């Protein structure tokens, strides 16, 4: 099986998952209790105005037809209009302002988590059983165990309110100022990164220690290769494969974290948008958000699979 064949299969699988996933998202939102017409028109709505509303938004058609209409629109780049938000915003425009913010915070957090875990996990494995290992492992457990909203408040208290190094609230979009984005996004990104860094560091440490016991590492030593060479090309090179796999699996938790963190730090990203829309029974917006998250997670998983396939020749060649 060649690499291109593997790539084709993986992309095909991802597309199929998007199709099934988007139908499920559509279905669940349809089955949810509450009539959007009532939410918009209020308690004083008459049966006639409700029926007229249903007709306008196609809510009286059969479910499959509704899904068909919606899917066709989505494929044409039209995500529909918000029901609840004043001015009936096109959802596309909403996403255009919200998505970059969440993407920025999410990637920022991911990069921080990866950098911290690479350093901590490698240090712990190299100093296995020593003080460095104990300290790094304990901090990792702390990072995993802390609830992210609580940790956010600790960060705000310490670095925003007491030290005044970072803003406690709000976010400067990267479109306005990159420096401002990195500065105002640091605390939220760190809050998202903490639990992930803990998981990543522990996975990397375990993977490094496990790989170091392999026969090929002893073989490398028997050729008289220098210790740093053996570590980089034999131990780390092979230990990083499970690390990248776990990284891909954690991205969906990243999304859950974004919803909470955006709330705590008052950031108007995808997470806030989705929560607000859900409370307003703004079905089209919730659908669009869920679809975006679905595509995002699948895209990252696809990316991770490709990286793993490049790193591990046993998967494709």
């Amino acid at each position, binding site marked *: 099986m060649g690499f291109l064949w593997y790539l084709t299969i993986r992309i095909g699988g991802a597309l199929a998952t998007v199709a099934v996933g988007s139908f499920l998202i559509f279905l669940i939102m349809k089955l949810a209790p509450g009539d959007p017409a009532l939410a918009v028109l209020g308690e004083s709505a008459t049966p006639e105005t409700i029926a007229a509303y249903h007709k306008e938004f196609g809510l009286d058609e059969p479910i499959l037809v509704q899904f068909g209409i919606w899917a066709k629109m989505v494929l044409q780049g039209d995500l529909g209009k918000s029901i609840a938000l004043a001015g009936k915003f096109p959802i596309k425009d909403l996403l255009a302002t919200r998505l970059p913010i969440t993407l920025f915070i999410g990637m920022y957090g991911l990069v921080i988590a990866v950098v911290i875990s690479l350093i901590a996990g490698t240090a712990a494995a190299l100093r296995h059983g020593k003080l460095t290992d104990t300290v790094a492992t304990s901090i990792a457990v702390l990072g995993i165990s802390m609830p992210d909203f609580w940790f956010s408040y600790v960060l705000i208290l310490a670095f925003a309110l007491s030290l005044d190094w970072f803003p406690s609230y709000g976010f400067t979009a990267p479109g306005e100022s990159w420096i401002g984005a990195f500065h105002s996004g640091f605390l939220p990104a760190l809050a998202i990164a903490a639990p992930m860094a803990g998981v990543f560091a522990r996975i990397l440490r375990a993977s490094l220690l496990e790989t170091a016991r392999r026969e090929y590492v002893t073989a490398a030593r*028997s*050729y*008289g290769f*220098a210790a740093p060479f053996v570590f980089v*090309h034999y131990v780390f090179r092979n230990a990083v494969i499970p690390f990248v796999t776990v990284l891909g699996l954690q991205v969906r938790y990243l999304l859950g974290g974004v919803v909470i963190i955006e709330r705590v730090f008052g950031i108007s990203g995808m997470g806030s948008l989705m929560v607000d829309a859900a409370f307003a029974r703004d079905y089209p917006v919730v659908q669009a958000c869920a679809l975006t998250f679905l595509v995002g997670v699948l895209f990252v998983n696809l990316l991770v699979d490709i990286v793993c396939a490049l790193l591990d020749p*046993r998967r494709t060649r």
Partner: protein
Amino acid sequence: MSDATLTVRNLATGFKMGGRVMNVVREVNLEVRKGEVLGLIGESGSGKTVTGMSILRLLPDNAVTEADTLDFLGTDLLSLSAERFREMRGTRLAMVFQDPVGAFNPSKKISWHLKQVFERAGTKSPEHAARAKNWRQASIKLLADVGIPHGANVMRQYPHQLSGGMLQRTLIALVLVFEPDLIVADEPTTNLDNIVERQILRLFRDLQKRLDCGFLYVTHDMTIAAMLCDRIAVMYAGSIVEIGPTKQIFSDPKHPYTQGLLASALALDTKTERLQEIPGELPNPGNLPPGCLFEPRCKFAKAECRAKPPAMTDVGGGRNVRCVLYGHG
């Protein structure tokens, strides 16, 4: 002995476990001469692998090795710093591993392995350095020497794409790159099928003749030992119980354990109706018998065997036996 490549006197190796050292190998005396194959034979858990690995200092960090002498061509291996010892590996000392599939970096092509070993060996001499420059051509020639005619194709492969036999041949080619003075092989044919095993054994014979080096061959298989080894050291529970020339040991085994090992190996060849086996099992290294370690399983055991461990006795013809039946040393 002036022709000794490796001289081991009173080697003991243990593993630190929860504050105390568990000794698994003790009182090992052996000598590997230039141009000979010494077989180190014993059942699983007898300490033969640990002996081989402790000579090359390849055991995990919790291993403790002590010896009165560990001499390799005039160099005291015991007093070498870690860095100096590393310089000996890949230039003068080599190891061939039990599982050829596991001995390759799974993320790298065969060509990568050859290139690295060639570059490493380049530090040994100007000739080696010259060959390291043309490592591709030299690799293809070496692979042909070990029975891989399409070396260029094999070099483009990843380890998992090759069979165990091919990988073991490639491992041998890697050893040939730096032409060591001592090779320690740890059951290198155990994971191969019978036909490939014979081919690889022949290859080892050729390799050893070509390099004229010392060869310590660790195995549990008496048949392989008979085919390959000039001399045999029989290990039991971490000690050598008998050592001598292969022919004499096979025709006239002295130690009761050697006799048992041979009887069980011969039983397979002659198809006797019952499989001969040695009753009992290896003693626990944490709870060794006070006298002879084989005494609990020995059919000749008597009171004096339990009193104290027997010493090695020279029984003539270059043979030594650790048993009271042959005197007290």
